[in-house]
């Protein structure tokens, strides 16, 4: 076999792998669309659920939004504050690395463990039972490393000359943060939060014991009420794999969930891309 044929064959083989990757996304999307589309309709999207999983997913979708946005709102100040502390106050060195390592290691905690810990700490020790607030707390901790790392990296990427100019002008650290750091890293802030939200919106294991029920409530009325969510709704329905009606409802809910997650990720990709182009100019 000549080198040229070999070259060609290898290119074809690698191309095939790439095709497989793209086909996988295509398959997943079309499977969700194909199975979920028939279930979708005005009634499905905008009515309250029935007792056994029939009926609409309005309140499940609202519950997912509530938990996701709550977690984002709780996580954001923590991520922003600690990222600012790490980049602007603490010198690079051992302590700084320790904080990074601690937060990074959160990524290695399997999400189901967050659920167990949240369950015992909030549900039992603090006696709130299964409540949406527990879910928000658990998810906020879970997405902390994603958001914090993105925010910190976008702050560290600010050119040193900007910081030096600000220092030379005699700005105090707080003035520097307002004039240079925050405006220059706003795109990283937004994309980091969006990626975190996308992670929280798709998470099931961390909230299945702590925050959600399958039926019995609609929207939480107090802090100690559980919520309905799309994720746990799908989980319960998927376990009744033989019932076609449950299957159809699960795929419908899946389609709604994946649209929500893709909107979040797509938005973050767009912002990152536009910003990257600006930075290149």
């Amino acid at each position, binding site marked *: 076999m000549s*080198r040229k044929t*070999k*070259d060609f064959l*290898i*290119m074809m083989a*690698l191309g095939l*792998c*790439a095709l*497989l*990757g793209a086909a*996988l*996304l295509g398959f*997943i999307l079309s*499977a969700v669309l194909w199975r979920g589309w028939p279930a979708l309709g005005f009634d499905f999207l905008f009515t309250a659920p029935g007792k056994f999983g029939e009926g609409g997913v309005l309140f499940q979708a609202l519950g997912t939004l509530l938990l996701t946005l709550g977690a984002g709102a709780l996580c954001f*100040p923590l*991520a922003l504050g*600690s990222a600012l*502390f790490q980049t*602007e*106050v*603490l*010198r690079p*060195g051992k302590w700084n690395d320790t*904080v990074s390592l*601690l937060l990074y*290691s*959160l*990524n*290695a*905690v*399997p999400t*189901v*463990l967050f659920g*167990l810990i949240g*369950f015992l*700490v909030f549900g*039992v020790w603090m006696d709130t039972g299964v409540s949406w607030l527990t879910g928000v707390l658990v998810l906020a*901790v879970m997405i*902390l490393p994603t958001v*914090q790392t993105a925010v910190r990296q976008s702050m560290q990427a600010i050119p040193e000359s900007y910081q030096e100019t600000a220092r030379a002008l005699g700005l105090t*650290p*707080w003035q520097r943060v307002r004039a240079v750091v925050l405006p220059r890293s706003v795109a990283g802030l937004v994309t980091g939060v969006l990626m975190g939200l996308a*992670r929280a*919106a*798709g*998470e099931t*294991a961390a909230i*299945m*014991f702590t925050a959600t029920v399958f039926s019995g409530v609609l929207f939480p009325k107090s802090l100690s009420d559980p919520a309905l969510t799309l*994720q746990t709704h*799908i*989980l319960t329905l*998927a376990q009744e794999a033989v019932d076609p009606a449950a299957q159809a409802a699960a795929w419908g809910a*899946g389609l709604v*969930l*994946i649209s929500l*997650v*893709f909107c979040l990720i797509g938005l973050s*990709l767009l912002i990152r*891309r536009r910003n990257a182009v600006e930075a290149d100019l």
Partner: protein
Amino acid sequence: MRRLLHSEIDFRHPFVLITGLLTALASGVVVFLFLFLVIQGQPAFTRMGFAFFSGEEWIPGETYGAWPLIYGSLVVTGLALLWVLPPALGCALFTSEYLRPKARVAMKAAMELLAGVPGILYGLLGVSFLAVWVRDVLGLIDGNTLLTASLLLAVMVLPTIMTLSEDACRAVPSEYRDTARALGLTRAEVVFGVVLPQALPGIAGAVLLGLGRAMGETVAVMLVIGGLDRVPLPWYDITQPGQNIPSKLGREAAEALGSGLHWNALIASGLVLFLMVMLFSLAGNFLLKRKRA
């Protein structure tokens, strides 16, 4: 104090205090989590001793041997790696070495979307398609097996491994490629003779991070692994149902709460899982960082 902080920092300023408090809070939560795992899991280790790792019986109220769960976690993750490695690497190499910039960006965006598909949807796909296919193709009674779980995990971590490996390939300086091309090497020879060896540490890091992700995944695996706490007979028969640690936690946690040693044993296996994932992630991160420097 002065050596820790930047020189111009006045540590009485509210900005410093507030961000410092937030950092302490964030780090404190993490420390608390780890202490919690150790303290809550420790009774299971002391009571069961080494039998916790080697025992094959898990009977709530009597004995807790986690070997089938650990075995399941290792086998499912290892097999997933085996399935995912060739296509993920091929995809990464093709995207970084052959595709034009526009197509490359589109491919990367597609992979990022794919990486964001919620685990529960993979579970649903697994239940409705993959488990049925495995059952029909292999002629099994039940499609929920270790093999099914490993295939599903392979699909789940493909985008993660692919994007990170692709980054590692892009990080190889283009001078190397130009030089090799100028020496008369064909494209494929450049890819396998120059780019791949240079990018190898980064790729290894990507694989380890993907491995960690696969190991901790719960809901998708829970739905298709079968949920049987035993090592298959013979041990290499992956077409039998099994169990891994996250799936066990997901199934039993609700009933085990407050029931003493049962709960401790679950947390202890969670701790074992966490340590394994941590090991992979740290090693992976180290390799990725080293490449960049």
